[in-house]
């Protein structure tokens, strides 16, 4: 596995990285954890002319709460998310399911988000929690909602000269819970099916906010908006979650493949939605 020839630029600051990207143009790629990019290069399905290494940039490795948000810097590794006590609900639930321990030690959460692999875990969590992606380009910083950020399989609305510098995930102020249920064939595998659930409860115990998103069953990670709308204002119940699960199953458009049949994947969406929402509600009620 020998990649083709490329130039390497080691950036010391975000500004340097962005400048290098402006210089490199379309042939430039940022390198953070490299857990997707480097295998793609070695299999010669990616041929970047210039790699811009951002690993030496200071200040991008923090995961912390600030102003009602969980902020995740561009160099926060999946393992840092697993270890962090600033996380909550679906974020905390998903982190240990990302890839395997080796990949989690190097791969970054922001890199995975920017990669927009529909089989990636994080974008479902961001959909369920309503997160924003922070991008920096030559013109400065901007915030993009995850819904606006994901453009398609492996494509985002990130500008050609922009770098994802962080994520901003709203931290619920009241009672809340979340879960990420993932069916994978083995550790390190992409999800066959995964469901991210997020629930917030008001003082009466009714659902005040709901997030539900699916991994690997559509061309992109999919927010199940009708199920979310259905649940808001309702008391959590098995029947309600069963109804939400039907909407989730309907929103899924899986394909037959080596991982299993479409009919079965839809059944797993149904089952994991029920179980995930129940776990989220239980966590919220206990919080």
């Amino acid at each position: 596995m020998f990649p083709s020839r490329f130039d390497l630029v080691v950036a010391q600051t975000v500004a340097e990285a962005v400048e290098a990207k402006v210089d490199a143009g379309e042939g430039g790629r940022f390198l953070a954890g490299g857990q997707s990019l480097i295998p793609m290069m070695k299999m010669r399905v990616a041929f970047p002319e210039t790699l811009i290494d951002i690993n030496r940039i200071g200040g991008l490795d923090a995961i912390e709460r600030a102003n009602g948000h969980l902020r995740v810097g561009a160099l926060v590794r999946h393992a840092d998310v697993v270890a962090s006590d600033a996380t909550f609900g679906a974020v905390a639930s998903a982190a240990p399911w990302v890839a395997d321990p080796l990949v989690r030690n190097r791969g970054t959460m922001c890199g995975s988000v920017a990669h927009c692999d529909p089989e990636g875990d994080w974008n479902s969590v961001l959909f369920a929690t309503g997160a924003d992606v922070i991008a920096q380009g030559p013109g400065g910083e901007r915030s993009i909602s995850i819904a606006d950020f994901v453009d398609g399989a492996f494509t985002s609305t990130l500008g050609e000269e922009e770098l994802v510098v962080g994520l901003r995930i709203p931290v619920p102020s009241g009672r809340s819970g979340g879960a990420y249920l993932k069916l994978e064939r083995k550790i390190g595998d992409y999800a066959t099916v995964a469901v991210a659930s997020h629930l917030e409860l008001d003082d009466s115990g009714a659902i005040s906010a709901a997030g539900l998103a699916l991994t690997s069953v559509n061309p992109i990670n999919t927010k199940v908006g009708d199920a979310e709308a259905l649940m808001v204002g309702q008391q959590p119940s098995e029947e309600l979650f069963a109804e939400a699960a039907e909407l989730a199953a309907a929103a899924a458009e899986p394909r037959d493949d080596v991982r299993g049949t479409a009919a079965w994947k839809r059944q797993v969406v149904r089952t994991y939605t029920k179980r995930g929402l129940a776990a989220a509600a239980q966590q919220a009620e206990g919080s």
Partner: protein
Amino acid sequence: MVAPTTPAEIGGIGHSLQRKEDARLIEGQGNFLDDIDLPNTLHMAILRSPLAHARINGIDSEAAMALDGVLAVVTGDLMDQHGLAWMPTLSGDTQAVLATDKVRYQGQEVAAVIATDPYIATDALELIEVDYEELPPITTPQQSLEEGAALIRDEKEGQTDNLAYTWETGDQGATEEAFAKADRVVTLETHYPRSHPAPLETCGIVADINSVTGQATIYMTSQAPHAHRTLFAMVAGLPEQNIRIVSPDIGGGFGNKVPIYPGYVVATAASLLIGQPVKWVESRTENLISTGFARDYYMKGELAVTDEGRILGLRVNMLSDQGAFYSDAQPTQFRAGLFHVVTGSYDFPAAHIDCKGAFTNKAPGGVAYRCSFRITEASYLIERLVQNAAYEVGIDPAEMRLRNFIQPEQFPYETATGFVYDSGDYPTALRTAMDEVGYEDLRREQAEARAEGRLIGIGIAHFTEAVGAGPSRTYDIAGLKMIDSAELRVHPTGKAILKLGVKTQGQGHETTFAQIVAEVLGIPANDIKVEHGDTNHTPYGLGTYASRSTPVGGAATAVVARKLADKSKKIAAHLLEAADEDIELASGVFSVAGSPDRSVTIQDVALAAYTNLPEGMEYGLEDVTYYDPPNLTYPYGSYIVVVEVDPDTGVWQVQRMVALDDCGVRINPMIVEGQICGGLTEGFAMSAMQWITFDEDGNCIGANFMDYLVPTAWETPRFELLATEVPSPHHPIGAKGVGESATVGSPAAFVNAVIDAVAHLGVRNIDMPVLPDRVWAAIEEAS
């Protein structure tokens, strides 16, 4: 378990000695193929076909040749000029080295680039233009044998269809009679899917041919270096005295490193033509898509049974998917390996086995992936059938087995297909495993769980293996008899060097074979160096695969050590001034019968062998033995698996896995258990997740470790190991092979457990891998 007869400091048979090879491997001091870095080495990369079936109209390598650093682009036409475009397979077929006429599977070798570094070689591959004319691919053996199917092997003289071979064995008449007497016939049709040994280290070669002397030093990842030397001599026409095969440390073989692959031939030819060393190391994808697949058997088994659950006969029809070339590594006279061990652990008079193999547009192989030539498929079929027969008859699957087992007093037992099982006590093995797992309680818990809507399943497999090929009257590979050898030299200070014809790939030969010598001569195992893998420094042998090292090479080691013990006794008698017949040897001490205080040690004797001999005796203390085993050895085991199935998703989890193995005398119990844990993990992998499949265009799905799944410690169940120890009566130290038992025996246990969880719904088969969607669909269909 039998207690060791030697003290720990000698470390003979039965001691769980730490592996002598581990220190260097753990501390990064191993020497693997890719560590070999000779001066002026060139690097080879192989261009492979992206298509499963296509005619080659031309290859343009001009741009690749023009790339700085490229020395040669080798094509099939160039190989053909040297008579090397095709090579023989181990099954008497021929295989393309580099394609000249057609490509017949995705990943087939089309051209090779020789360059000054591997990056340039890989860059150059992208500059070679091949003009392919696509042909319709054939991706299943059923399709392949249909009337009017495109001829895959159109180059093969006399070949008018896609049939690779036919083979039958057993007694058809007696079997028909048995079926006529049966109360019922239990039928199972199942596919044992294509898998791959996927060793951690891929295959590779460094070919170094001196253009002046003609000396060919070939470093290669070889499980059978001596056999490979002879095959190189026969295929490439190199004089055998000039060929030295060095098989360095090997990172796992599992059958993958038995065949000679096209890459080896091209690298050797390139080194010969260019006069510099040429290195080729497969990528993971190359390993998975082009070298040595295993299994891929479509089997229909029918069992004739009585209402009392007695088996009367077995009928099997088998169709194998051979890929584009028939290249099974197997004893030559058996077209489907030792598949006829399919009668398993059971006493019944009649069986008939009808096999055929078909060419398809898939990679060739048919290697014995951690099994003794197709025994895995056979063992799986009979254990699945017996379990299903129990459901049909209406008795417990354990009881079904107990009613049909070959009984201990029946050994040696000749099966309906002609194997003579050497020894065993099957009822004790199964009952011991059942006691350990708490079988009766589990059946109660299963019934209670069902009442609550939970699905628990208990699966049994009681397998019998046939390993240690093999007796010269029956077994050969490409005409070479499957003997093996050991050469033992004891040095003047009493330290020894043991040279083997077999070759470790992780099995622990450097430890266990030293223990055999320690047992016989009493030289501490840690004073015995074991050498293997270099054909210039070891005696001839057929190599390590099919669990044959201990049954054949281990036997040779015991015999050669006994030869030296006999000579040593004579020397001791001379030193002690006693009669030869009065000398007794125990744990390295020679004493005179009746006066134990008169003694010398093996170290004294070793020195005397070079300094002070009885009149007329030749100096030295060394010998060599070639061992021709009188029979195979027949290890067996009773495995019980407990699973719980999630009825909503079909996901199943192993709750318990109890594995009892009887491999005869255990030389090093720790290493045996390590082998068993590894084999159980591979068996679990095949039953749960691991397969190489193809889409309808013949694209290989499973070309990297994201798609070809190797379980980690996380997925792998905890194994509870048990042992019984019935020695092999014909093996010099009573040992049987064990490396492959667990891979052979365990898949049926896992699959039977899942079937057992849903058998009450009427489910009788789910093909491997037992993926959750298949389980869920089976439940849906049955409900």
